[in-house]
């Protein structure tokens, strides 16, 4: 009889897990930065009153939001072949896919944040003689960022969870490190419980931070199960 209680495999393979976790963190940081750059551009375009900026941005964001993250990661990986002539490395394919896919969700957060500032304030700003940059920098952004803060943290939690999708194209990040260890040790219960626990600790502490930021009226909530 073989026990499922094999916790000894965790300390034995700890350096391997640590390597995977470091890669997960690298993907997370790179994708986080890129995702918010994407989000600010497309969120601002969707918030604009000009139809020639608004509609193309809306189409891009809605199409990306309508496709599964896993599909998107694989798709970007294979897209690179016809587009640039050679396959992107799995690592960069995963980073780009996460930037674009999560960026589309993040763009909705940015748009909601910009929408949370009443248009009258913008008009008032223009009528006192401020230009676009001044109105955005001094009137809209300070208020929008404060309302967005909890949603930004929630999005970051979602991005952290979604880094595990990189597993499917062969990036040896934390989850794939776990599946490799499991393949060798046949300790799926212990290994996957350990992985779940680590992800839980990271995401839970992040989302606590978000809850602390979100204890006032008027903030934007982002509870999308992606």
């Amino acid at each position, binding site marked *: *009889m*073989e*026990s*499922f*209680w094999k916790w000894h495999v965790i300390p034995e393979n700890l350096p391997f897990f640590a390597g995977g976790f470091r890669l997960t963190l690298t993907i997370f940081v790179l994708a986080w930065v890129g995702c918010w750059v994407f989000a600010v551009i497309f969120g601002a375009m969707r918030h604009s*009153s*000009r*139809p*020639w900026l608004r509609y*193309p941005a809306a189409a891009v964001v*809605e199409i990306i*939001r*309508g*496709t*599964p*993250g*896993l*599909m*998107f990661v*694989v*798709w970007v*990986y*294979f*897209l690179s*072949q*016809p*587009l*640039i*002539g*050679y396959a992107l490395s799995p690592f960069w394919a995963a980073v780009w896919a996460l930037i674009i896919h999560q960026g589309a969700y993040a763009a*909705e957060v940015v748009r909601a944040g910009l929408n949370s500032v009443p248009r009258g304030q913008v*008009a008032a700003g*223009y*009528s006192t*003689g401020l230009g676009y940059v001044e109105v955005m920098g001094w009137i809209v952004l300070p208020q929008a960022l404060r309302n967005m803060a909890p949603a930004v943290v929630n999005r970051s*939690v979602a991005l952290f*969870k979604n880094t*595990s*999708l990189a*597993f*499917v194209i062969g990036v040896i990040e934390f*989850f794939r490190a776990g*599946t490799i260890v*499991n393949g060798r040790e046949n300790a*799926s*219960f212990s*290994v*996957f*419980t350990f*992985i*779940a626990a680590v*992800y839980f600790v990271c*995401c*839970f502490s992040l*989302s606590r931070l978000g809850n602390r930021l979100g204890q006032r009226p008027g903030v934007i*909530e982002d*509870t*999308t*199960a*992606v």
Partner: protein
Amino acid sequence: MADAVLSRTAAARAARRWQWFETPRERRAFLLVWGGLAALVVWYFFFGPRAQYDYNWRWSIVWQYRRFLLWGVGTTLYIFAWSLVFSLVLGIFCGIGRTTNVRWVRALSVGYVEIFRNIPLLVQMWWAYFGLQQVVNAVINDPLGLRILIPSTFACILALSLYTGAYMGEVVRSGIRSIPRGQWEAATSTGLSRAQTWRHVVLPQALVIVIPPMASEVLNIIKNSAIAMTIAITDLMFYSQKIEEETFAGFEAYTAGTLLFLLLTLLAVGAIYLVQWLLGLKVRSAG
């Protein structure tokens, strides 16, 4: 400057509602931005570094393997339907549990939501498939000499329902919270019991309020079901990969799969709008 302010007034906007551009400068900006992007793409495909390579487009493969894609759509819909039922039930009970005064029910619901929302669905699915199987082996199969195998469909629907149920619980909770306190007090003062208040006053209102955010969670079930491919569910994602394995036409196969997923999501959006219209509600975006 004054001109710009005037053009922003509501009357000015109403007068020019059907005009794409408010000023000639905007038309120039439009042509510069989108024309520039289009020119860049055209240049890239004909003269860029890619032009030296010759990618062999084989879109006919998608039509040849249409059966695979249809089977995949069938499995995806099957998983979607069961997960939808279970996660709705879980979500409603969890939402009620989070708003009751009974402390242990509330603690249980909070624990459930926090645990399942903060672990990637991929990990949950693998835990439910591989991890659970090992427990079943050690606890039931080996002592009793049985050979019970957890079906991957069961593991997938279990994980997907628990994951989405946690998110739906949050949505239902915020719906229940939005019912004013006065309604509770009014129901109590007319002599309704606690259960009757839930059944006749709170839930009928709360469940209507939550339809738009709930709709977006429903769409997420379709999208998240792609992850089931990793535990060998033969869904749309799985068959896209199978086409790629058989023909090496990866880009074509995955593009077809992506578009079919998009189609499913759009059909679901349509169905949700239909439900809202049938219920006589104001149709709102269900992104």
